[in-house]
């Protein structure tokens, strides 16, 4: 199933379809197919999660009316304010409360309104959620915890509405970090995350909430966690990414193909525990690797992937692993186009790596 992205700003349409800006409609039925955007897919997943488990709860700031990105529309009306409710403005409180709820064997689906605001909750997530099962000798756990948060650049978000904090959480054993690339992936991965018996942080690429439109099955389905997916086969170089960055990588792959470079593109999907085998198998085939993410390059998750792959595939590698990522600055305001790992930067890296 190909993913279709809309023409807007820096993104170039590679699909056959383009859509009008009436993304106000939550469903965009065309020719009888169930074409749905990201926030609607997530909304469907949440509806199903609450339907299938009477002890599932959705809460966060402003979720009751539907949320600032419409991901929670209709939930409060359908399941009642006892199960879908607003919290005051206190991220640490939301996380702590969610952990407690999960510790009593409930499915606590908490929303942090923007990933940039997750830091007051960092202590609760890292010190309480991640270590609960471990330190209680498996007597208690907060596996029912899922924290959903929109992350990533959105074109004009500036310092505090664009951050990608995934690597902070990847450093914590006991947590899972999952990032979908498209509506169909999001629904399956979110349901899998909610039902996974470990605490999961689910980052949703906010740029794609309206822009990404795809056919999404209406039924309840899950996609496996910790399994990376090869979304484009190639033989010359492997590219790894996640979330919104994949569409940029895909464009770069298309352009590289015109120059005769055959690129293999992998969507990591789950960042920890990540699927080392798939990436390793691909790099053993191609001998070259590029990792790309929006977060700053130093200490970003690309560093972990690079180090692990070099350990495993050192003798097979034809060139150093390249990381095309955000710059080592705070996420800028007017300079966003310079900061971002754009298609051209990736193309440069593909060429340099192939011609090493």
């Amino acid at each position, binding site marked *: 199933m190909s993913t279709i992205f809309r023409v807007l700003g820096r993104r170039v349409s590679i699909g056959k379809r383009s859509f009008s800006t009436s993304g106000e409609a939550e469903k965009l039925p065309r020719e009888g197919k169930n074409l749905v955007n990201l926030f609607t897919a997530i909304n469907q997943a949440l509806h199903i999660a609450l339907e299938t488990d009477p002890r599932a709860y959705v809460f966060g700031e*402003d979720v009751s009316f539907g949320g600032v990105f419409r991901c929670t529309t209709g939930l409060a009306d359908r399941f009642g304010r006892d199960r879908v409710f607003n919290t005051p403005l206190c991220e640490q409180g939301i996380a702590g409360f969610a952990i407690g709820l999960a510790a009593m064997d409930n499915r606590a689906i908490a929303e942090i309104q923007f990933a940039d605001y997750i830091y007051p909750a960092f202590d609760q997530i890292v010190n309480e959620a991640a270590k609960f099962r471990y330190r209680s000798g498996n007597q208690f756990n907060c596996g029912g915890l899922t924290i959903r948060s929109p992350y990533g650049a959105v074109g004009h978000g500036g310092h505090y509405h664009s951050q990608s904090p995934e690597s902070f959480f990847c450093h914590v054993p006991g947590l899972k970090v999952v990032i979908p690339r498209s509506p169909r992936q999001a629904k399956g991965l979110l349901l899998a995350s909610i039902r996974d018996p470990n605490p999961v942080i689910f980052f949703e690429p906010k740029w794609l909430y309206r822009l990404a439109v795809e056919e999404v099955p209406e039924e309840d389905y899950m996609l496996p966690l910790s399994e990376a997916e090869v979304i484009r086969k190639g033989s010359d170089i492997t590219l790894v990414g996640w979330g919104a960055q994949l569409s940029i990588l895909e464009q770069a792959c298309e352009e590289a193909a015109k120059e005769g470079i055959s690129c293999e593109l992998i969507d990591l999907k789950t960042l920890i525990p990540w699927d080392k085998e798939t990436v390793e198998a691909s790099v053993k085939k191609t001998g070259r690797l590029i990792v790309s993410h929006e977060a700053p390059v130093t200490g970003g998750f690309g560093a972990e992937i690079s180090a692990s792959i070099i350990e495993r595939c050192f003798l097979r590698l034809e060139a150093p692993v390249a990381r095309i990522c955000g710059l080592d600055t705070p996420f800028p305001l007017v300079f966003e186009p310079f900061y971002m790992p754009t298609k051209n930067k990736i193309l440069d890296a593909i060429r340099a790596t192939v011609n090493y």
Partner: protein
Amino acid sequence: MALLRRLVSSSSSSSSSSALLRPILTSPLSRPFSSDQTLTIETSVPFTGHKIEPPSRSVDTSPAELLSFFRDMSLMRRMEIAADSLYKAKLIRGFCHLYDGQEAAAVGMEAAITKKDSIITAYRDHCTFLARGGTLVEAFAELMGRRNGCSDGKGGSMHFYKKDARFYGGHGIVGAQVPLGCGVAFAHKYLKEGAVTFALYGDGAANQGQLFEALNISALWDLPVILICENNHYGMGTAEWRAAKSPAYYKRGDYVPGLKVDGMDVLAVKQACKFAKEHALANGPIILEMDTYRYHGHSMSDPGSTYRTRDEISGVRQERDPIERVRKLILAHELATASELKDTEKEVRKEVDDAIAQAKESPMPDPSELFTNVYVKGFGVESFGADRKEVKAVLP
């Protein structure tokens, strides 16, 4: 029509505080006044105190002060409305949180204090910046992300700063500025400057844990900090009674005294801030709750009408608008004619338009600015280009 003698000095004839009444933007007064004319005006509602005796309802002011209030608030109102249009024209991007309706809080506070006192606030900071002596050009340039903005175009709407006026900004993360404000107050106390810090936050931030941590520390160490809750009754789209068990924010300090103030009455704000400053210097922290209202939504992405009725908004505009209140006072005391006030508004409008035109001419920051001020200059961090060999930049 009263005949008034020329104003000789600009000092307040009444208050014993060290506040100097300087209009924010000097403009020749169109009407001469007597230098010793004091007006005593009652605030709209009495103050309510929590563990403290509230100050008197009678506020001393002067014709010059009232006219300056009118001008300054009109300027702020005009600036915010112009920012609204610029945002819709996509000249301002990102986020833009407008302060119109709440002008009395910024202006009244400024009238009670000096530039040695510090102010720190959240993201609804355009008017506070102006009150602290910022210029319109700096403000608009910053909003449009241009080089001549107060933060060199790198901060944007939420990050206005003015060091020489001790305006510590401008913060995007809700509630994060309050502990900072308490730290600034500690520095004031340590340096024995006789100055106070005003840490402003909203009703949404009032439920953040860090606020209470900061409050405890301030009370423990008797820091000269005044926490001002600008309660506009909605945290984004959530009404205060839905977010707080106790929306009486002036009482939330428990062991810290508090005062509830009509934030739409600039004289009440001035009186309260003056009172609070004296208290804070002598006794430590105090909370002021400003009962105010914002006409716009939370930000430019919020129409502001999905969680409150248009009747409510227009009701407040009719009954409690801060600028209209001052206009009525001026007209009632015959300090100026209605047409003179209209002229002031026209001047203000022109000033704003000129500033916008000037700001538009300012260029965008140089791309090298992407790397400046990440660390202190000269730290010399290297950053590599895509090929990892040839192209590299050393951060300044």
